């Protein structure tokens, strides 16, 4: 039974009833309804509870401004919290619930807060929950439950979302009269136009009133215009699409709700889409918000915006009440009064704060009494308005008013004037200017290529909106270099003129400081008394007052209350409103779901994944993967249910005793060529390049200008003017960029060319005493013996008939070869080596074994054993520093700080108990019993159990470490205990490095 539904009219489809549930109640609305209009049609007054005081609240607005009707829509993993019922299109089977109120909106136990509302003043939480210290954790849980809004779904979102990039000549935000006219004008000139509107159909305010355009109902004009736009190839019409952010260089973000209006069973495809639009020109035509009036108990269910009442009457054929009182300080509410009277609702009176109102003749002709120079002082009724008290007012806010006239009613329609929605103009960087005639902020000069038109620009008349929209569309097209088509402005009549006299708060009956029920911000329960209290407590800046009183926070971001709040603040401070100013407008205009923001960038598409050419073999072998940079590298290769430690121990022993194989393809590879290649690399690397013979390799490090280790790797001289560099896996891109920086900017005289080969070549490391035997077995066309192919050399070769580049290098200290091969042949080569290696128990290993093997040899990993504050000397690499040349970072190495004795230096550590594997990152202390805070002298950078040595090993950076070998320290563990450690050489295994040189 939709008891508030009118018999006829509205843009609803009465042949399509829709069933839905609200807080468990089964209700019915019609296609074309919003959840809000359907609730009003069913006579539901209380739709939520207020944030702090838990007062019953009803629907107050009809769009983005709605502060009270905040709903949880849908169930389970598809649920969306905190939607405005006024913007939710009804669908069959919708399940909606209030986000506030426990156990229910009609009986909320926390409503007791309302009785003590004077206690819950501004800053209540700050003042109350500070003490006793430490109890905040206890309070927080309670506050969060009592103050929260909707619930986020706990399951993964099953829907898909997408981002789409678009370019256009003219983007029009809003499809009311100004926006439609602007789009028509721009499109007729041939401009590529995108027009977006947050509602399900175009028309904006024209859908909510009895307007005439060109002598016909405005709806006809909307239909024709929408059809014309829809028929043009150069126009993209986006209904259900909110322009939510305006960023630099005319980049705008639009969220399109594609399937939210359909029943869950009907939804297919993308649920929401974010359009990333780069527009040459923008027309902002998003309209204006009506402001509430600030009087006692103005939050009672049944107190609504006058424009909302008109919208529900016209668009949804719903009359929100039976006996209405209008309360206004301007003329626009008179139209609502007439609308109500025409719909059969009794309009008891129009209470107008102005002593004289030109529009009162309109009311008189409709037989509606006007109480001029009066104000509504108070509202009675708790879950529904039952009446108002009205008093005569002198016109001076400082005076008090007696509410001597009682009027029985169930609906109060209020209008405090209008504020242009300047949000997007402000996002774009534009300031707003106070207009003393219109009593609102209007957009000031634009800082980007945009212009505002219509009521969003402070133009209230329909004819004015159409005229300004046309001009804006023409201007935008001209700026794009197009010739305006010269359309005529449609003729429109403006039945109600617009004049306004400000009324920022209704004078108090006694003391304005005690008016804790004169609400300014409905969602946050911010009242006149709160703002006055903030000023008394010393707050002066509007941004501070906002944060202290919560004015303008929340899902609605103060779309209704902000200007009233600033005006009340201005009054307290004795300043003008423009002097107080507005708070900052930031995107998003209305809340945007995380799903839409993430778009496709979730799950597998969250981040690009790089895999080597041999990846599928690793997968088939059951290797877990470690993410390094964006690379997925095999971590270890478990056999028969081994854990990490067992697998790594086996891999280490097999490699040192016979033969291991590792996919090292992720190393960065850079090809360097050119007549000046030697000179270039001399400046980059610390060692001598010119002395390198063709066919030789060298371990090299590069430093930052600060002298700190930046990257390392093997580099090889392939020709007189041709080098091949390897970098760390994670550093590859940065190193290339760093090399390019120097080449392009400081050393443009050098003739050198750099090419990344990282993905083109794969690298297979064949490691262990049997590595030479393996290569000989698969057939190598070059002599692999030490004499002809010594350690640290490189040769082109054929391995099993496949051309490869063969490096004799070692990151393990064992006899080892690195096979560099065209990535297209890498998997085949790997499989061939694995097959042939069977007789040597060839053992694939991953990053963990690689780390253990290199740590046993004291080889550092840049970024693990170094942290940007480690010089080559600190890491024990004096031998790498050429004395004959300059190189990047060299000057810094002689700075006093870099030659200090007590710098942190790389050392090895052995656990005193012979079994504790120290946690990486553990701090080193000399005396664990020293007075706290215990001085720390270093930290563990790498730590493993060495199966080859039979005990744990660790690398550490220790103050003055090199001169402390043999001393004993203590490593602090996470549980507070300490372990004794002995300082040793960082080279634990084969200290003379004989094994790799055989």
């Amino acid at each position, binding site marked *: 039974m939709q008891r508030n539904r009118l018999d006829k009219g509205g843009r609803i489809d009465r042949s399509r009833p829709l069933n839905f549930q609200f807080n468990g109640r089964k209700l019915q609305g019609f296609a074309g309804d919003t959840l809000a209009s359907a609730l009003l049609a069913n006579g539901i007054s209380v739709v939520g509870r207020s944030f702090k005081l838990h007062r019953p609240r009803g629907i107050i607005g009809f769009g983005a401004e709605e502060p009270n009707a905040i709903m949880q829509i849908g169930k389970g993993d598809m649920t969306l919290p905190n939607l405005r019922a006024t913007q939710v299109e009804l669908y069959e089977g919708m399940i909606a619930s209030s986000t506030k109120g426990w156990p229910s909106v009609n009986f909320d136990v926390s409503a007791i807060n309302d009785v003590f509302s004077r206690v819950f003043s501004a800053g209540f939480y700050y003042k109350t929950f500070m003490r006793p210290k430490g109890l905040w954790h206890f309070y927080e849980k309670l506050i969060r439950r009592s103050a929260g809004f909707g619930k986020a779904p706990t399951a993964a979102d099953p829907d898909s979302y997408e981002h789409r990039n678009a370019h256009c000549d003219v983007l029009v935000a809003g499809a009311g009269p100004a926006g439609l006219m602007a789009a028509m004008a721009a499109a007729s000139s041939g401009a590529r136009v995108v027009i977006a509107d947050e509602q399900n159909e175009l028309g904006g305010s024209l859908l909510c009133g009895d307007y005439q355009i060109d002598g016909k109902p405005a709806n006809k004009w909307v239909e024709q215009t929408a059809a014309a736009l829809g028929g043009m190839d150069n126009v993209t019409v986006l209904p259900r699409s909110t322009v939510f952010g305006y*960023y*630099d*260089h005319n980049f705008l973000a639009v969220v399109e709700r594609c399937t939210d209006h359909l029943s869950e069973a009907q939804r297919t495809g993308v649920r929401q889409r974010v359009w990333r639009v780069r527009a040459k020109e923008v027309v902002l035509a998003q309209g204006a918000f009506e402001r509430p009036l600030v009087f006692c108990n103005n939050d009672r269910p049944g107190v609504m915006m006058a424009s909302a009442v008109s919208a529900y009457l016209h668009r949804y054929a719903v009359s929100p009440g039976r006996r209405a009182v209008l309360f206004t300080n301007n003329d626009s509410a008179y139209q609502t009064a007439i609308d109500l009277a025409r719909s059969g609702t009794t309009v008891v009176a129009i209470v107008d704060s102005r002593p004289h109102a030109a529009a009162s003749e309109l009311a008189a002709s409709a037989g509606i009494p006007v109480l001029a120079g009066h104000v509504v002082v108070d509202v009675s009724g708790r879950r529904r308005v039952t009446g108002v008290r009205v008093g005569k007012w002198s016109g001076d806010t400082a005076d008090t008013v007696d509410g001597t006239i009682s009027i029985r009613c169930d609906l109060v329609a209020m209008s405090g004037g209008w504020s242009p929605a300047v949000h997007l103009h402000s996002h774009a960087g534009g300031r707003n200017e106070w207009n003393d005639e219109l009593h609102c902020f209007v957009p000031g000069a634009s800082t980007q290529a945009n212009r505002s038109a219509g009521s969003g620009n402070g133009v209230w008349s329909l004819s004015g909106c159409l005229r300004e929209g046309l001009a804006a569309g023409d201007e935008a097209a001209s700026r794009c270099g197009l010739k305006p088509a010269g359309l005529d402005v449609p003729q429109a009549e403006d039945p109600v003129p617009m004049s306004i006299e400000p009324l920022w708060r209704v004078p108090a009956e006694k003391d304005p400081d005690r008016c804790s029920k004169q609400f300014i911000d409905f969602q946050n329960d911010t009242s006149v008394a709160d703002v006055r209290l903030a000023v008394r407590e010393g707050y002066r800046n509007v941004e501070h007052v906002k944060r202290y009183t919560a004015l303008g926070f929340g899902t609605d971001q103060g779309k209704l209350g902000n200007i009233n709040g600033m005006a009340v603040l201005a009054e307290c401070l004795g300043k003008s409103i423009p002097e107080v100013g507005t708070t900052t407008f930031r995107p998003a205009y209305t809340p945007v779901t995380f799903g839409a923001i993430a778009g496709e960038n979730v799950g597998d598409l969250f981040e690009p994944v790089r895999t080597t050419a041999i990846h599928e073999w690793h997968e088939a072998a059951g290797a877990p993967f470690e993410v390094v940079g964006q690379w997925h590298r095999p971590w270890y290769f478990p056999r028969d249910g081994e854990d990490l430690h067992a697998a790594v121990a086996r891999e280490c022993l097999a490699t040192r005793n016979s033969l291991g194989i590792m996919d090292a393809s992720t190393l960065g590879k850079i090809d360097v060529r050119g007549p000046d290649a030697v000179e270039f690399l001399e400046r980059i690397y610390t060692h001598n390049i010119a002395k390198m013979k063709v066919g030789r390799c060298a371990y090299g490090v590069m430093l930052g200008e600060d002298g700190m280790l930046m990257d390392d790797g093997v580099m090889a001289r392939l020709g007189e003017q041709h080098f091949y560099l390897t970098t760390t896996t994670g550093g590859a891109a940065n190193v290339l960029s760093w090399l390019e920086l120097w080449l*392009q*900017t400081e050393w443009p005289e050098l003739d050198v060319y750099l090419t990344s080969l990282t993905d083109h070549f794969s690298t297979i490391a064949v490691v262990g005493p049997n590595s030479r035997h393996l290569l000989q077995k698969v057939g190598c066309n070059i002599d692999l013996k030490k004499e002809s192919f010594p350690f640290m050399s490189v040769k082109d070769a054929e391995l099993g008939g496949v051309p490869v580049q063969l490096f004799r290098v070692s990151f393990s200290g064992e006899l080892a070869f690195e096979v560099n091969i065209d990535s297209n042949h890498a998997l085949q080569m790997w499989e061939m080596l694995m097959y042939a290696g069977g007789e040597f128990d060839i053992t694939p290993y991953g990053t963990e074994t690689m780390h253990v093997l290199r740590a046993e040899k004291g080889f550092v990993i840049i970024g693990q054993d170094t942290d940007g504050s480690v010089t080559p000397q600190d890491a024990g690499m004096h031998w790498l520093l050429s004395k004959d040349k*300059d190189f990047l970072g*060299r*000057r*810094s190495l002689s700075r*006093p700080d870099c030659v200090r004795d007590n710098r942190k230096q790389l050392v090895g550590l052995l656990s005193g108990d012979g079994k504790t594997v120290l946690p990486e990152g553990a701090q080193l202390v000399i005396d664990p019993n020293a007075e706290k805070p215990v001085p720390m002298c270093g930290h563990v950078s790498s730590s493993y159990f060495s199966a080859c040595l039979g005990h744990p090993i660790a690398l550490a950076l220790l103050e003055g470490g090199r001169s402390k070998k043999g001393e004993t320290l203590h490593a602090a563990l996470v549980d507070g205990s300490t372990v004794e450690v002995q300082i040793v050489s960082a080279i634990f295994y084969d200290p003379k490095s004989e094994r790799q040189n055989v």
Partner: protein
Amino acid sequence: MKILICPLNGPRNISEFTYGGEYHPLADPQKSNDRAWADYVFFHDNHAGIVIEWWCHTASSYWFLAERDTRTDNVVRTFPASELATSDGRS
């Protein structure tokens, strides 16, 4: 999303670029005392106003310079490094 005008590739979304820090002329390592060298390596002006900065068009590894107003985040102009080399008297 800002647009940055790459001197090589024209106007591109700023997501294609990497910031390379404030430009300051290379110090001569031979002639700088410790103090001057530390100033060069570690200290930056952090000037409020128009500063010259290194930017790299990541996709093409192309380094260039931008004049940017740090107060407004407005890029006044971009230009190739060779322009600066010429004005420095370097080849």
